[in-house]
């Protein structure tokens, strides 16, 4: 079998075809012979039977009439048939009646047993039995025996023919098959050839030629496609290889640099470790030496891991006493909730890094106020809370005092408010009375009072007025800062225009707004008061025939700088500060009726907003009043303003 397997396809095909053909033919031949034989046999039998029949028929009379001779005579006719070796007529009790022998009286050709009818083969002879029937009655049997010689000779002949035909057919089949096998083998062989060429020469561009559209054709297609893919992959492979080489180079370069970097990093790392050690040392020193108490606890359990000497100072417990204890030992019961101090929980939750206030309790039971700031750290894989405590008892006390003071102050303020009201009303009332009465006296007793008297009464009235103004001034001053207004956006341009309108200007005085004023967030009345006081001052004290008052503003870093410049009398330097003092006037009141409160109020207002006010002037050459207002995005947050203190 293996031998066959290694034979070339061509021979395989031929072999197959031949084998098939030959087998077919042989089988056909055999079948044919077999059939022929059978037919022959049958015909022989038939033949013999017929002859026996004839004999029987012809021997009827002889047998009936016991004429053996006649029977014999009849039998003798069998000589014609060369194959018949024996013929006999038996009576109906199976006694030989007449016989015929081809070759001498050979007992051997007698049938071994008699049948009534039918045939049998035996001893190389065919025996046919036929009953002799006369009028429906069997009177005897005819037996004929013939040898198989015709059959054998037929057989021989047939076999000979068959063999001849076989050879002939085989030869033809060989011829045809060796031609036709090419149909199969040629494409396969060519494919094999191509394959071999491809594998030997590694030439993937080769392609097999498709000859037919059958399985071989599709095989060739597949093969070609495969080659295509291989070729492509080859190309890709070459490409990739190239790329790979490039990448390898790059990688190598990278690795080299990485290696260098690594060496560097290691050096750095070592340095860093050294630094770390130093830092740790530093930390340790700081930890130990810190004034604030530092407590390190296990973040999960809340057990104290470490603490510095400052803790001992704070709570009066030694380090050994604290380590291993739960952090709540530091706090009084009211500051503990759920087994942990409240601030601890808060810190842990979401307030890390924020300063919270709580209380600690010393060993002796003394409660101290503390500010604590805690953060979550990871030390050696473990989460710890580091809390820094600062004793804020003093601060707390101060805060308390402050609150107290605040309260006092507020009360004072309220008192003052009421006081101001009272002052305003109750002080003014008698003044009013005095004035009115003076007025009536003047009116009613005009004829009874002399010039001096009238003058004196005039002075009386004047002094009453002054008193009135002073009271108003005080009231005004006190109102500033006390009465809180809503902070609104004020367009200073509009405000200044209004103020200018309100001031009664004489014809010789002009107020000029030099540039665009900003819009600021402030209390409207207050700022109005500022501009009003300053402008009215400038107007009031104007001594020049052409009074020019200029108002401007400049933007500085973080504040507005307003200026009111006049060409009035000017102010001596030594009075620069004085003019802002309460009730201070530079000229006697008889000359310029003034409360002396105006600038004081302005100063108070400006400073309340966190600004500054000053004056630049040369005596006789006018004055320049400057004040600044800080720029605020969201209004004034000045602490003083907030507190509403009266400075």
């Amino acid at each position, binding site marked *: 079998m293996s031998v066959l397997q290694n034979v070339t396809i061509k021979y395989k095909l031929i072999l197959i075809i031949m084998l098939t053909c030959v087998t077919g033919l042989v089988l056909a031949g055999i079948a044919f012979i077999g059939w022929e034989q059978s037919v022959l046999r049958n015909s022989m039998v038939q033949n013999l039977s017929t002859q026996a029949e004839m004999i029987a028929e012809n021997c*009827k009379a002889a047998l*009936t009439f016991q004429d053996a001779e006649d029977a014999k005579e009849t039998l003798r006719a069998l000589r014609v048939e060369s194959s018949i070796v024996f013929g006999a007529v038996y009576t109906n009790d199976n006694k030989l009646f007449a016989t015929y022998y081809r070759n001498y009286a050979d007992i051997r050709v007698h049938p071994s047993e008699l049948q009534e009818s039918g045939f049998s083969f035996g001893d190389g002879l065919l025996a046919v039995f036929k009953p002799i029937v006369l*009028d429906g009655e069997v009177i005897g049997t005819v037996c004929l025996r013939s040898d198989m010689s015709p059959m054998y000779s037929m057989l021989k002949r047939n076999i000979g023919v068959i063999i001849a035909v076989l050879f002939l057919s085989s030869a033809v089949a060989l011829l045809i098959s060796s031609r036709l096998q090419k149909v199969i083998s040629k494409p396969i062989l060519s494919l094999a050839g191509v394959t071999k060429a491809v594998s030997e020469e590694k030439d993937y561009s080769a392609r097999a030629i498709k000859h037919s559209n059958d399985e071989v054709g599709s095989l060739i297609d597949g093969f070609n496609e495969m080659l295509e893919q291989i070729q492509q992959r080859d190309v890709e492979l070459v490409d990739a290889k190239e790329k790979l080489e490039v990448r390898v180079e790059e990688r190598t370069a990278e690795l080299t640099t990485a290696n260098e970097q690594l060496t560097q990093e290691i050096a750095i790392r070592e340095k860093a470790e050294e630094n770390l050690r130093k830092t740790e040392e530093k930390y340790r020193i700081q930890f130990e030496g810190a004034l604030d108490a530092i407590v390190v606890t296990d973040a999960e359990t809340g057990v104290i891991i470490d603490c510095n000497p400052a803790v001992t100072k704070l709570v009066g417990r030694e380090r050994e006493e604290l380590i291993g204890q739960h952090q709540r030992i530091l706090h009084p019961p009211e500051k503990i909730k759920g087994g942990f101090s409240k601030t601890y929980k808060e810190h842990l939750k979401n307030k890390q890094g924020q300063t919270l206030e709580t209380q600690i309790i010393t060993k002796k039971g003394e409660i101290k106020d503390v500010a604590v700031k805690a953060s979550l750290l990871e030390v050696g894989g473990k989460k710890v809370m580091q809390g820094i405590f600062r004793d804020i008892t003093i601060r707390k006390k101060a805060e308390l005092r402050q609150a107290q003071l605040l309260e006092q102050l507020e009360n004072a303020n309220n008192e003052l408010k009421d006081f101001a009201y009272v002052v305003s009303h109750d002080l003014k009332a008698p003044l009013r009375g005095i004035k009115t009465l003076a007025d009536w006296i003047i009116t009613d007793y005009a004829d009874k009072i002399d010039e001096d008297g009238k003058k004196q009464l005039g002075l009386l009235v004047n002094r009453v007025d002054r008193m009135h103004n002073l009271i108003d001034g005080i009231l005004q001053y006190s109102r500033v800062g006390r009465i809180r207004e809503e902070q609104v956006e004020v367009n200073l341009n509009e405000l200044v225009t209004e103020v200018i309108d309100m001031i009664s200007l004489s014809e010789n005085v002009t107020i000029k707004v030099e540039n665009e004023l900003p819009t600021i967030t402030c209390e409207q009345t207050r700022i109005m008061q500022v501009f009003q006081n300053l402008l009215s001052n400038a107007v009031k004290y104007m001594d020049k025939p052409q009074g020019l008052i200029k108002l401007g503003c400049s933007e500085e870093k973080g504040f507005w700088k307003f200026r009111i410049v006049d060409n009035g009398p000017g102010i001596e330097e030594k009075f620069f500060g004085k003019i802002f003092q309460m009730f201070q006037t530079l000229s006697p009141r008889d000359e310029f009726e003034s409360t002396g409160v105006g600038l004081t109020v302005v100063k108070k207002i400006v400073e309340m907003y966190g600004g500054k006010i000053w004056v630049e002037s040369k005596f006789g050459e006018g004055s320049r009043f400057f004040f600044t207002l800080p720029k605020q995005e969201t209004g004034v947050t000045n602490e003083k303003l907030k507190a509403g203190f009266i400075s």
Partner: protein
Amino acid sequence: MRIRAYNLIVLALVLFMAAISPKARANSATSIEYQVKAAFLYNFIRFVDWPEEKVADSNEPIIIGIIGKDPFGRSFEPIKDKPIKGGKVVIKRFKGLKELEKSRGKNESEQHQQIDAIRKCHLLFICRSEKTKFRETINLVKDHSVLTVADTKGFLESGGIINFIREERKVRFGINIATAKQAKLKIRSQLLRLAQRIVEEEQSDEAKK
């Protein structure tokens, strides 16, 4: 019927007596001969074809007539029930012509009946006793397709169709094909072949004499 039964018993007794009588023994040899001949008669019928009109009615049995002194005796016993050509066989015995003539005067109808019966036979065995009347007897059945058989010398020449010939220990026969032809009988070749003697002599009208 009492008479018939009585007759039968008497006949049986007589026959039995005859059988065991020495004469009967002496006839054993001849009885064999006649057994054979009886069988032959049956066989003849097998190999002879009567014309259509004689065997038209298949239900009618084949009649074997024996005229004269019956030599067969009981020879027909073994074979009388055997069918021939699918039909039964009947053996009829007739008196000889002499006696027939004698009785002519007495009962004509009976005589005619007899003659008709004789003519109806398919095979008529004319016994030796009728030797002198062969021609007449043959004439009688002429044109009636009767197969005439005898075992007397000169039968064939007398116009008989088959005649037994004694040859040593074998029974042979001869056939007159002419007379057979005349009687419109077809004798199969097989039978003819077996005949020891074939004669072709026509029956002449001389028999009428």
